[in-house]
């Protein structure tokens, strides 16, 4: 006996095997990301006021990346529609766009990551005076960039200062801090635009804690990196599967076109789910 319903749907359920399989898998994925989202909510409502990071991600890039992913989602479904009417060429064309979009998304994401790794927050032992929104403020916590021996280093932490025996480093603070409300941050950004940023020279002894925007910086960045990295892994996995079906696996189109179309549909369902997760991740991480 052979396994039935690999291509044709079973009469009473109206489904072929792989479709049941992928929806079950997606159900488990809903719970996987559900666990992470509930972690997000619980950590956020439990956060001490003023410690929740917000407003530090690059919104235009994030928006663009959202558009890239949405485009890839529509090309997936269009490619499936093309296969349904037997147009293999058009299917290949659309799916090629999908794969390119996936690579584009990952490329942009890694660029965003890299930017964060060389962006810092410093906690100081003694407050300093900085200009924010046109006013002088005393603060012991600054966001900004480090310059050391002509370089902008990445991944530094409090420990690095001791290990590298750094005596002092140059620090260019941003005009904002996430303790401010979104409105205040927007205002501070506007007033600071075009002006030359102030610079500080901090001694290692001045620094209580130093952290780049890495997962260990705060629970927000921990969530940001965990969620987006897990999502990126899904994008990568989905792209590999779509590529396999598109390229080496395309022989099946000749031998069993119906099953081949099913494969495209099933991989497409996974891809839409990945898109769907991003639809929530984008506002939750970038905007709120």
């Amino acid at each position: 006996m052979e396994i039935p319903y690999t291509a044709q749907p079973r009469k009473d359920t109206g489904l072929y095997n792989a479709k049941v399989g992928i929806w079950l898998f997606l159900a488990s994925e809903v719970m996987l990301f559900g666990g992470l989202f509930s972690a997000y909510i619980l950590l956020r409502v439990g956060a001490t006021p003023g410690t929740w990071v917000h407003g530090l991600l690059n919104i235009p890039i994030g928006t663009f990346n959202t558009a890239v992913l949405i485009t890839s989602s529509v090309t997936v479904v269009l490619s499936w529609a093309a296969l349904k009417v037997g147009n293999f060429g058009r299917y290949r064309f659309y799916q090629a766009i999908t794969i390119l979009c996936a690579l584009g998304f990952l490329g942009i994401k890694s660029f965003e990551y890299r930017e964060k790794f060389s962006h810092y927050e410093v906690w100081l032992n003694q407050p300093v005076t900085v200009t924010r929104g046109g006013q002088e403020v005393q603060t012991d916590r600054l966001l900004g960039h480090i310059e050391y021996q002509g370089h902008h280093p990445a991944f530094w932490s409090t420990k690095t200062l001791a290990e590298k025996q750094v005596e002092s480093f140059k620090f260019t603070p941003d005009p904002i801090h996430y303790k401010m409300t979104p409105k205040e941050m927007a205002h501070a950004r506007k007033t600071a635009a075009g002006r030359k940023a102030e610079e500080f020279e901090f001694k290692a002894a001045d620094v209580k804690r130093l952290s780049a925007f890495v997962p260990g910086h705060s629970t927000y960045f921990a969530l940001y990196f965990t969620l987006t990295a897990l999502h990126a892994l899904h994008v990568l996995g989905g792209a590999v599967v779509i590529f396999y079906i598109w390229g080496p696996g395309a022989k099946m189109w000749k031998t069993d076109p119906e099953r081949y179309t099913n494969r495209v549909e099933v991989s497409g369902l996974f891809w839409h789910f990945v898109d769907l997760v991003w639809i929530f991740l984008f506002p939750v991480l970038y905007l709120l």
Partner: protein
Amino acid sequence: MQATSPKQSHAGHAEAHHEEPGFWSKYIFSTDHKIIGIQYGLTALTFLLFGFCLMLMMRWQIAHPGQPVPLVGPLLAKVLGGVAAGGVMSADLYNSFGAMHGTIMVFLAVVPLAFGAFGNYVVPLMIGAPDMAFPRVNMASYQAYVVGGIIMFVSFFIPGGAAQAGWTSYSPLATSIPTDGQTFWLVGMIFLITSSLLGAVNFIATIIQLRAPGMTWMRLPFFVWAQFVTGFLLLLAFPPLEAAGLMQLMDKVAGTSFFLPTGLAVGGQLADVSGGGSPLLWQHLFWFLGHPEVYVLILPAMGIVCEVISNNTRKQIWGYKSLVYSSLAIGFLSFIVWAHHMYLTGMGTKISTFFQTTTMIISIPSVIILTCFFISLWGGSIRFNTPMLFALAFLPMFGIGGLTGLPLGFSASDLHLHDTYYVIAHFHYVVAPGTIFALFAGIYYWFPKMTGRLMSEYWGRVHFWGSLIFMNVVFQPMFAQGMAGMIRRMADGGANYSLARVPDAIGGLSDTIMSLHTLILWGGIGLGLVQIPFIINVFWSIKHGRKVTSDNPWDATTLEWQTPTPPPHGNFAAEPTVHRGPYDYSLPGKAKDFTPQNEPDQGGKH
């Protein structure tokens, strides 16, 4: 028949002329559900034995703290080094063994045996399917399980040893122990969870899609229903733990603070972390799996017991529909009871009331199932063979385990009993003489189908009576110890704690309570010894057991007995058609006292 579909023309013979696959593709990288089932079974039994040995060494340490472990002490010292210097188990090693005993028994032994082994071998046969819906996914599931198991096993030998924070791995303790054992544990768990997810997808899809014509939902054997619900529990409850595992892994390797609160001090020093995390979050996500997991352990066991009881009482199981609906109700409710493990975390009365209520409600379907089994015995002409003995013993043993759980489900009584040996006794009654007895019943019951030979009845009985007696010797005293206030996880079995007692003061650990440790140790040794006949019986019977004279040695009704023995690749020569429910025993007016599911009604010749 509602499920009949136009048959493909290439029935059996087109397939049959394939060349014989070689050893590797036949036994190691097999996609045949029967081989995978046996692979799961052997691996899981090995881990079951290993987990038991860990516990035996711990029981020695509890009964004789600070004395070298007999027999294996020198070996421990040699292999593990400083933590077992002189063959004496250090507190760290005790903690490792404790954490790994729980992890191995739950995730590497009982679940793979109940779900992976029996589910894989029996479910497709029972529903009349040629294989699982996704054979290659099935193979991947087993491989992920093996990789997870290897990672867990290897972690004993890394510097610092295996994970030490209990099988529940509560943060911040799990994160702040400086060794790498926990990292291995987390990576291993991610593999095991992936394995379970792949298995669950496969099982559910198979049961939905590959039922033979005529095998309607209400004609499924209860074992299949139990596996179906179990599949959903694994599918939906495991991913939140996978999420939690990923977060704890990040805490461990990337320095995040998902579960580390602000102001955390380790070893008297403020920890170098950002803080802001929530230790309770880990507990929520862990028990969101943890509680459904209990039903993952028990439902397949109930399924096996149902098959064995119906077969050996030679009558229909009483209340088939009640069984089905009860198992569905258990599956549904088990997702909303988890926080009864967390009454002592500073939970308010509203939430605590909610979880107490759902906890009490979920005991109802469990009691219904057990009651159905008991009533099924009434008026049966019972055959007392080894599988039936184990299935019968399951009933009171699981009953004790279940009923002693009720005091733990009320927050008032839980205040006293939480984290004591009472809890250990309770859940071990559910899992050890409960589930494991059912699994033994399953092994004795389906062994002839897998091998074509019967296991020895005599040694089966020795195994049964020994196990029954020693299980109770081991676990019954723990109720008393727990109610006397003995706390879990003490590396010296409470020796220090009991020394501090004031004579005649209420609540101290008396000498009687402490001396029970010795009794339990001997009970454990006895339990180990009576497993030897079982192990020998399994391997000896493969080659030398009494040959079965028919494909259906137990005169059973379900489809797995209506195939050749052992079933060939593809299982059935022709697709079977199902005409009746699963337990048509002793139908009036029939020549035989059993009517197989694929036997047509009189007159309705096919």
